[in-house]
């Protein structure tokens, strides 16, 4: 970000109009305090996490959960909260500090 040459006001589009889909380029995952950890073995593929995730951060492959998009996940924990697997959930939340 800091190395990129920023545009002057004459080069900006009128009314701050941008091309669509810019949120994808804007990585917001570093706002996260706790991160979801997905356990493939425990997962029953009910897709509740995918339905509930407010940031579309559950990655699906061929209709099945394949991982978590940590570039955009903000660590809200809804996926883990909604995971019905017992006694230990297929998605558990761990602190960012611990995971490093």
């Amino acid at each position: 970000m800091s190395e990129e040459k920023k545009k002057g006001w004459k080069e900006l589009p009128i009314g701050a109009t941008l091309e669509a889909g810019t949120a994808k380029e804007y990585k917001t995952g570093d706002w996260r305090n706790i991160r979801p950890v997905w356990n493939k073995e425990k997962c029953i593929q009910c897709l509740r996490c995918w339905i509930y995730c407010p940031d579309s951060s559950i990655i699906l492959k061929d209709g099945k959960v394949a991982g978590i998009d940590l570039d955009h996940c903000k660590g809200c924990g809804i996926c883990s909260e909604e995971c019905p697997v017992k006694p230990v959930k297929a998605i558990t939340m761990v602190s960012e500090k611990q995971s490093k």
Partner: protein
Amino acid sequence: MRKLLAITGNEAIAYAMKQINPDVVAAYPITPATEIVQIFSQYAADGEVNTEFVAVESEHSAMSATIGASAAGSRAMTATSSQGLALMWEMLYIASALRLPIVMPEVNRSLSAPINIHADHSDTMGARDSGWIQIYCENAQEAYDSLIQAVRIAEECLLPIMVTIDGFIISHAMEGVETFEDKDVQNFIGKYKPAHPLLDINHPITIGAIDFNDYYFEHKRSQIEAMNKVEPVILKIAQEFNKTFGRSYGLFEEYMMQDAETAIVVIGSTAGTAKVAVNNLRKQGKKVGLLRLRVFRPFPAEKLSKALSNLKAVAVLDRSTGLNAYAGPVCTEVASSLYTNSEKKPKILNYIYGLGGRDIFVEDIENVYKDLEKVVKTGRTENLINYIGVRE
């Protein structure tokens, strides 16, 4: 064929809106602007316009829906007054920053408290720095003519515009208004081609995205430049209007200014009263003039100060008060522009008048000219700020 109609200011505006035939009107009623959208909603219900009329639950929603409609790529309008404009406040800035050419008639009314429904300019003066073009009209004819021009101005500059009349004094008074044929109005405003319509699904866009300290300033700077370019557009479209319909408008109107030694600067319907005072004093041989400011945003500083620089003394009449500002809003801008644009600096008096619809009479204005005469004679101004018609 042109028709001379006996209609009120509100009716003239509603009729112009009918002839403009916008794609979307979203509005909420408020005295004294209610009739504009009430009459217009009847046009919509009767199928006389193709407009999608959206009755919303507040003015905040009215401006929000109008912004949405305009961003989608439609010609969108609304109308309001006073508290309604105040409730639109945060959305006004969004409309102008997104560069949406929304046209909004505004009926000038005081702001609460105390609750009052009558004319003064506190409402739109409060919105003077919101990035909207502002045109203040003297009468119903000018409101009709200005609204038609406003569509072109907004769409060429990609900026929103408000066209105002004084509450009740103009909004509810019946005058003869010369109206044009629908097709002539349509020909004049032309077909609207939006620059970046949201509904163009082949070219998807993002609008209203977040802008941190790395870009916000640049976006504001480009918005300032958009405003800087408005003045010649207003003059160009006024000239075209004059050629097509035969009535001439400018950034301001000069009345008996050529050899004037003293003058009044005024906005809105009071100019009509002031012209009578000028006529009376001219008959007595007094060299008095009048400058009626029509376009307040963008403020025509250079041209205005040139028009005033040869005077010995000027009185600026403000129908609103800055409360603890240096003077009323019109006076501060007139004085600042003279200070920076002109070597010659006439003496300046400010008169606050007409708050909450308090009437102003020919005699009141003649007295202002008498004060100016005294200032010229003595070379001294006793008070910068004076009041007309308030009981001590």
